[in-house]
């Protein structure tokens, strides 16, 4: 934490708070709304949760990278037990198998163009997400529903793409329980996929709320907070896309 920021802020904050409460001592209803930072509790809590998620994905990405490196070391060293896990790949896609050994990386397994497309889709869903928040805060409920629906749809397309990618991998003999790379790859991308799915569920819930007329302007912040989660999931994919797919 930044100490200077903390100290700077105190001075301003005190004045604000004293003024804020001077005529307020009889009003006891404000505990949920009273806020020392000028930001609602829920928003702060969501950011804290996301800060915690940074560590979660940091640990997952790091273990993926270490596991992949260990896996490749064994492949290049010709460890028979590890090479045996790739026999199916050798049969189904011999050119990929050769390339892996040649380049000393798992890169040839990935279909970069396909993944780029799903990255675009997820990025686009972030745009529709902010537009939906904007629409709700401007009381344009019809537009907000369209954008919410679009976000959920784009998220679902992304998940569908991930399922397709997993299927391709599976058919090439990259199994979760066969080797280190499989375990690490499915765990990392699967964890992200679960996060996207949770996001889709929340978006769907918001959409239902909106259709029942319960998502009005006052609750714009709810959309913003779900949005924060959604964008974070998007950010994580930005990292995964570059670190896992593009950098060999």
């Amino acid at each position, binding site marked *: *934490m*930044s100490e200077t*920021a903390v100290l*700077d*802020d105190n001075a*301003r*904050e005190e004045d*604000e*708070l004293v003024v*804020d409460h001077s005529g307020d001592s009889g009003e006891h209803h404000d505990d949920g*709304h009273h*806020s*020392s*930072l*000028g*930001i*609602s509790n829920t*928003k*702060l809590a969501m*950011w*804290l949760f*996301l*800060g*915690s*998620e*940074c*560590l979660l994905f*940091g640990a997952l*990405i*790091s273990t993926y*990278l*270490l596991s992949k490196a260990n896996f490749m070391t064994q492949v290049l060293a010709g460890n028979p037990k590890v090479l045996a896990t790739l026999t199916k790949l050798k049969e189904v896609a011999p050119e990929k198998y050769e390339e892996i050994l040649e380049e000393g990386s798992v890169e040839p397994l990935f279909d*970069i*163009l396909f993944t*780029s497309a799903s*990255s*675009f889709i997820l*990025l686009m869903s*972030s*745009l529709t997400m*902010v*537009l939906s928040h*904007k629409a709700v*805060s*401007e009381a344009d409920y019809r537009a907000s529903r369209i954008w919410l629906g679009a976000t959920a749809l784009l998220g679902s397309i992304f998940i569908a793409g991930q399922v397709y990618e997993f299927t391709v991998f599976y058919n090439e003999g990259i199994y979760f329980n066969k080797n280190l790379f499989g375990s690490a790859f499915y765990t990392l991308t699967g964890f992200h996929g679960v996060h996207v799915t949770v996001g889709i569920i929340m978006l769907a819930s918001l959409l239902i709320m909106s259709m029942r007329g319960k998502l009005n302007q006052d609750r*714009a912040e709810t959309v*913003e907070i779900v*949005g*924060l989660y959604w*964008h*974070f999931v*998007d*950010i994580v994919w*930005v*990292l995964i*896309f*570059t*670190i896992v797919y*593009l*950098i060999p």
Partner: protein
Amino acid sequence: MSDSATHDAHAHPQEKQYWAIFVVLFVLTAVEVAWSYLGFEGVSLVVPLLVMMFVKFILVAGGFMHLYYDAKLLNGKLFSWTFAAGLILTLLVFLAVFAAFEFPS
């Protein structure tokens, strides 16, 4: 400090800006993919990719997640530090982990 005023729409960017951010994200991703196909190796491959990744990260967090705008609010600095602390910590800790695995002897 009425809190409904602190996060109303005026503090946040306009629709045009959102689209602009998206276009930049789109272009950056395209450049990233192209860069990975251009046959660069080692540092000249990895560093530009990481830089572009970082810019995308900042754009989404700052623009779409309003961090850039919320940090300008009263006490927004302290607020945004709560997330930044987690992020920076992640970077430092796992760089140290990689270093520990990189230099075993």
